């Protein structure tokens, strides 16, 4: 019997997108279950049945796993997207956590948008002109020396996490990535990977 895999999250890219990319790249059949918003009764009924009262949750043959990066790592190991040695696994983890750190900063902007705060433009400018800059610069440098992906010639889920983040940055400002040649090349390369490409062409359009 093939495993039954369900990925449960709200109808946004957010914290489930990296798992969706991994599953798409792996060509794994799964149910991309998009639950109604956090205020819905559907979610209120589901909440207590999840491990920590939050989404995303991955279900594998009825067993549940919470926490987006944990889900990503579990799937990445399963499908060979976590690097090829213990040291590489660790380097990949390190990039994923580094991205998570700055992505948490971006959440302030999303919250400002949702609250229709007067401050949106300020929050956005601080993020794009200040907060994100050292991160992009560091990642750009890590890709130096003609590397196709962070671990060399083959993609890992660190590349997916980075590119998903870059897409969000680019959607905030179309020229934000202009100075980062390596990162733009990485995006292009990753977007055209088999599985990812097809997924991107058919994924539901959502604001976040």
């Amino acid at each position, binding site marked *: 019997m093939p495993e039954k895999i369900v990925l449960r999250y709200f109808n946004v890219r957010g914290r489930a997108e990296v798992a969706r990319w991994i599953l798409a790249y792996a060509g794994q059949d799964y149910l991309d279950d998009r639950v109604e918003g956090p205020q819905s009764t559907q979610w209120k009924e589901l909440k207590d049945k999840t491990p*920590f009262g939050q989404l995303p949750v991955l279900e594998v043959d009825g067993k549940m796993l919470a926490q987006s990066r944990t889900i990503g790592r*579990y799937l990445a190991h399963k499908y060979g997207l976590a690097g090829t040695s213990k040291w590489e696994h660790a380097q990949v983890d390190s990039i994923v956590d580094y991205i998570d750190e700055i992505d948490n900063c971006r959440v302030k902007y999303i919250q400002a948008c949702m609250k229709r705060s007067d401050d949106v433009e300020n929050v956005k400018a601080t993020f794009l002109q200040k907060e994100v800059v050292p991160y992009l610069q560091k990642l750009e440098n890590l890709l130096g020396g003609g590397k196709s992906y962070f671990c060399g010639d083959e993609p890992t889920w660190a590349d997916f996490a980075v590119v998903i983040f870059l897409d969000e940055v680019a959607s905030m400002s179309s020229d934000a990535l202009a100075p980062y040649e390596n990162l733009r090349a990485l995006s292009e390369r990753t977007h055209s990977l088999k599985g990812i490409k097809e997924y991107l062409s058919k994924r539901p359009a959502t604001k976040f």
Partner: protein
Amino acid sequence: MGSPVTLYYFDGRGRGEVIRWILHAAGQNFKDERVDHAEWVKNPQMKTKSPLGQLPYIEVNGKTLGQSHAIGRYLARQHGLAGKDAWEEAEVDALVDFTEDIYKGWINWLHAKMENDPKVDDIRKQFLTADIVPYLQQYETILGRNKSGYLVGQGPTWADFTAVGFLDELVLMDQSILTSHPELQEYVDRVHNLKGIKEWLAKRQKTEF
């Protein structure tokens, strides 16, 4: 035993402490290099030497690795402190991330305190009387269900080290915080008494955080 490890972190517990606990529990010798904060700020070379411009990082065989949890996982998996199969490893990771979610609230309070934020008392109160409540409950539920005395599987993992390291910070904020949670108090004592951890706690230098 693994290759020689040097840990670089500031002279505090912070995000370096879980790494120290793993190495002490594993009985692995390592160099616990304490970076002077003033030196770090003034000497840009120190930042350049670190892989991501931050602390902590480790150096192994001349190579460096950044991010406390990436380091923790790498070392814990090497020393049998990360779960016994892929699913257990994932359960451990999920709990580490779960603790990280609430640890961010603690950092938020610490910053408010260090910056003399006028709202610091409200932040502290909200954190101790509301934010941490579901987290403490969750630890209790999991320990009640798992029965081994630890969060995952039959023995200690680094998920216990991050959880107890966090509970230790709570107790420093409020001595009586675990009085109404006897199971958590027992759990904390159990982890503090593990071989390697016990000796480390007896000799570690006192720092504010």
